[in-house]
């Protein structure tokens, strides 16, 4: 399986995402093949990267939309199809309405043609392949691979998203890398830990395992994130299959070792957020500010739930048990919505069991100014400053000058889009009635209307509204559902044309739809 499942490659701070559209299946496969041959798509086994025998300088991950898989010549096995949630895409009108994405028409890139019928002008925005290139220094390409071109490689770049390394900070003592998002909050703190897999970058790895009483709250069966493995229901996660994949020596289906990847490019209006912060100052120093209340954590990542007493471990707390009324961490706070911990169900154990059914492995990074990438960034992400050297409070005054972070390139992995990502997004984050509330909005979700946020307290708490500077702070500008195949499946995709067995099949096979396409090349190793 791709190492991306178990690690966000945080030790490789320079990262760029390519959203590609397949224009010529055979050439595109050849390019993917070269990427594979160069060895930059690592297997989970080599983790942790920095402790490998030879330090890894460059790593990559490759994922495909349903349309991308089809465009590359794969055919769904009718006996084991893809779930309709994935094959329909994130932007089909029903799905986007359910997810609350009302501005899909304005997105920069999407994962499928929006309308079921013909006649829409978004063909140029449809991404088929998502490639993430992670390296120690910006601008590095793996040996023998160049950025794809529409002409030579059959892959047109729909969008190139450069991330901003200034938001990653390496803690020299623990060896952990932490991410801060453009509003200034530490992000990616609460991650599920896959049972049985080395927890490379996640909680407890540095300290040799967390001893907190709540440590098991985050321990999740591998089938929640890796297809074909046992999930929280005790069943193997469903594996879709494609025609021609199963071989005598490999009885596993195509989906085995793969997972689904949700990507959302979320623009963050930092100026507006700063205005809001200035308007709603903390009542007294040492108490959380309104912004921190809305997020549910202090900016440094410390949880607001501090009873019975504050702990060192940033994840050692529960809501139902310590803060049911929301007097510490408001009931509509972002962390409460995104990971309700023990809130669901009828008691703490059932609540934890229930929330384990809806966990996400987050692999997000902060993206920079569009198109220009690191070159135009005047901040520390221009490649001159090592990530470890950033000062302690690096982002205190960001917003007007300095680092180029525009928003979050949200990436999440899960084995069941409907049960995991969609529940979190539509039922928890975007649900104004989450957790017994009546009309509260999550800070991360754009609503397009007057926003409210209530802060519980005595005697009856207070409510923030537009008059407090509350407005939409985020806008989704791109998104899609991708399938992150296992390495074997990835090789199968790349080898499609070179395979002897299933090739002669007529019909919508690779290259068949394009009579002018050159004959499939024998090998993809020669650069164009």
């Amino acid at each position, binding site marked *: 399986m791709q190492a991306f499942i178990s690690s966000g490659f945080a030790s490789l701070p320079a990262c760029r995402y390519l959203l590609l559209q397949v224009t010529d299946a055979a050439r595109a496969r050849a390019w993917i093949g070269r990427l594979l041959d160069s060895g930059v798509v690592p297997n989970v086994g080599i983790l942790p990267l920095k402790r490998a025998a030879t330090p890894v300088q460059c790593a990559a991950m490759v994922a495909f939309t349903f349309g991308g898989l089809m465009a590359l010549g794969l055919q769904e096995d009718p006996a084991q*199809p893809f779930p*309709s949630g994935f094959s329909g895409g994130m932007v089909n009108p029903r799905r986007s309405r359910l997810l609350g994405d009302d501005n899909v028409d304005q997105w920069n890139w999407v994962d499928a043609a929006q309308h079921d019928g013909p006649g829409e002008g978004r063909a140029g925005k449809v991404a088929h392949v998502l490639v993430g290139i992670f390296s120690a220094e910006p601008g590095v390409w793996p040996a023998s691979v160049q950025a794809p071109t529409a002409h030579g490689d059959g892959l047109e770049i729909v969008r190139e998203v450069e991330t901003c390394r200034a938001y990653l900070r390496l803690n020299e003592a623990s060896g952990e890398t932490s991410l801060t998002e453009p509003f200034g909050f530490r992000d990616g703190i609460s991650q599920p830990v896959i049972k049985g897999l080395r927890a490379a970058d996640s909680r407890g790895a540095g300290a040799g395992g967390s001893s907190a009483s709540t440590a098991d709250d985050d321990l999740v069966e591998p089938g929640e994130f890796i297809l074909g493995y046992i999930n929280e229901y*005790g069943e*193997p996660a*469903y594996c879709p299959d494609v025609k021609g994949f199963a071989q005598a020596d490999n009885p596993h289906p195509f989906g085995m070792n793969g997972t689904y990847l949700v990507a959302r490019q979320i623009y963050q209006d930092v100026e507006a957020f700063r205005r809001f912060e200035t308007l709603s100052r903390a009542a007294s120093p040492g108490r959380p500010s309104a912004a921190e209340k809305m997020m549910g954590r202090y900016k440094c990542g410390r949880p607001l739930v501090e009873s019975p007493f504050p702990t060192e471990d940033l994840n050692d707390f529960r809501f139902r048990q310590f803060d049911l009324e929301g007097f510490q961490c408001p009931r509509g706070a972002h962390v409460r919505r995104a990971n309700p911990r023990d809130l669901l169900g009828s008691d703490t154990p059932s609540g934890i069991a229930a929330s384990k059914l809806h966990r996400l492995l987050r692999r997000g990074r902060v993206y920079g100014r569009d198109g220009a990438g690191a070159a135009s960034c005047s901040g520390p992400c221009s490649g001159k400053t090592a990530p470890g050297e950033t000062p302690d409070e690096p982002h205190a005054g960001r917003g007007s000058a300095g680092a180029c972070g525009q928003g979050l390139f949200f990436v999440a992995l899960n084995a*069941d889009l*409907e049960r995991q990502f*969609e*529940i979190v997004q539509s039922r928890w984050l975007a649900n104004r009635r989450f957790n017994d509330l009546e009309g509260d909005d999550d800070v991360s979700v754009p609503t397009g209307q007057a926003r409210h946020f209530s802060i519980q307290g005595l005697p009856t708490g207070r409510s923030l509204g537009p008059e407090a500077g509350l407005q939409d702070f985020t806008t989704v500008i791109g998104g899609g559902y991708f399938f992150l195949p296992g390495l074997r499946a990835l090789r199968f995709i790349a080898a499609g044309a070179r395979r002897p067995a299933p090739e002669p099949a007529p019909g919508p096979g690779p290259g068949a739809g394009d009579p002018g396409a050159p004959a499939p090349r024998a090998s993809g190793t020669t650069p164009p």
Partner: protein
Amino acid sequence: MANGQMLCILAPIPQDHAQAVRQALALGAPLRGALDQALHAAGIFHFACIAVLPGPGLKEGGQDDPRLMIELAVDPHLGVAEATQALARCALPELWQLAAPAMPAPVPPTPHLETLAQWLASRATIAACGFVGTPERTVRQIHAEAALLADARQRARQTLAQDHLRTSAELAASVCTLVDQGSIHDFARQPAARNFWQRAPLCIRLLGAAIKLVLPAVLIAVVLLGLLAFFGLGAVVAGSVVLGFEPVVRVALGVQPGAALWAMGVVFAGAMVLWISTALYRQALLSATVVAILLTGAGVLAPSLLLAFPAAGQALLALAGWGAAAAFGVALLAALLAATLALAVALAPPFLGWRGLAIWAVVLFVPYVAASHFVLQLALDAGAAGFGLEPLQTLRGALPVWGWLPAADLVGTILLALSLMGVVVVMSGFRFGRTLPEQLLRRLDRPRAARPLGTALRTHVSIEANEAELRGQTNHMISVTDLRRIGPFGIVPAALTLRVMLWGISILSTTVFTKGLLGRAAGIHFGHWRLIDGGRRLLFSSNFEGSLGGYLDEFIAGASQGVNLIWRWTELRPRQAAMPDQPGQMPQPGVAQAGQWPPTRLGFLLGCRYEQRFKAYARASQVPHLYRFAAYARSNHDIVRATRLRNALRAKLLAERAGARALVADDQIMRALES
């Protein structure tokens, strides 16, 4: 009863009219707006939905027309006639357009109120088992309380804006002025309506449930006994023919049941046969014929036999009495066992000290001894019938060790000891290792990872569109499944099983579980089951909060056993879609085993714990709605919170009048206002 709040009007319609219904109710069609207005104006409908269900798939009868379904959730205590009358009155032209082709000829050419109302009432049924999340509330009440809550919230904000340091009591007092006499909120001076069962203490509710469940159970038992007697009669007559009179009549020695029981038995046997045959065949002619023959046979033949042969009469009376007594004894023992288990489960650990255990022993002693005596007596008498009395008398005398005890007490003692041991085991399980049985249960209830492949979750476009349409509102689902042809033990019809189970659940939910919690699924507004098409299919419909996938997850987590008990008697047979863009032809190609309920263990474990297969089954059983009405888009929490505020304001008022403080009410008011 809550079931009466959920009406369903079902009628076959011609295939081409199904398309017309669809077009009339298409998004943006004028009929939708008109219906919305009409139903809002009527003010008694919480939710409504119109759908066209696929036909039941009857090949021979030619009755495979699609079914027009109008589903209603109405105010409590209305009654079918009143609700349908109101429906016809508020939406006469709209419903006429939809329903006229389904009405029996002659249909008046123009909309006619009485015709429509009568037709609606004739096709309407109440739920076989229904669940209401916020019971005993009218639409009006929900709206009024919501307005009160909104105003109260605004009042609190204003008060707080003027002065930050208010206490809860002061703030609550300022809110209380909202419900002053003469204001639009003065309804809140009256407490919210609650029905008898909601007010009653737990013991009364348990008693009520026991009476409601036990009385019909006794009735059914009598019916079964009558059946027994009926067959006993045949046995005695046949025996007399083969063996001669003497040996058979000897059976009657020592037992003298009343003739009344026998007569009752014959009558009830007839009724029973009528019921069973009706459930089985649903063809009036056949069942009428069967019953007529049986009743004639029993009514004419038996008395004449009795007159002709008085001794034979006595003998068969005896036999019937035996049957009755034996069945009573078995039923009594089973009931005792069930009661023991139920009580042991129902009582929470804190109440079960050693003293509690001692009380238990005493309480259980009496009925157990009595029951064991009874059963042994029966066994002895049966033995006497078979072998004559002498050997048994010898047996009784030949128990030297227990000489001072009659043999009955030996068995009674053994039974008692066993049951006490059982109680001790159960109790100590609760007291010392509560998790042990739970763990065992959980292990039994966890799927084995035997199959390498799961089942793909494929949702039909029309279902997805339904769900997208209802974003931010109360969600809705319709599930139609076919009853399996064979029910429990291979002989009991599935329809009968489901009817009995749904009836039992509905009594329990009315009397005992009045708080409106279905397992742990708290977001259900109105959910109901009914058998349709003469017991061929099960219709489940639910108005719930959240997404369908999450709803199904709640089922798995909180109500899997109940879900299994009901749906395991169903399956999905291929069916013709009611219209081209609706799901039909299940199980869908490519979705393995979607047509079967996942395998269960012990009848109630596993099953829907196989998440992928369960979800695939549920998805495949769904039918999209064409039109949907909701009187409000409030969550159960919102509704309950508003009622709680109202009651707290009233409590605060009463306390103020008495010059007392109302700390609880103050806090309730504050919590209701905070979000």
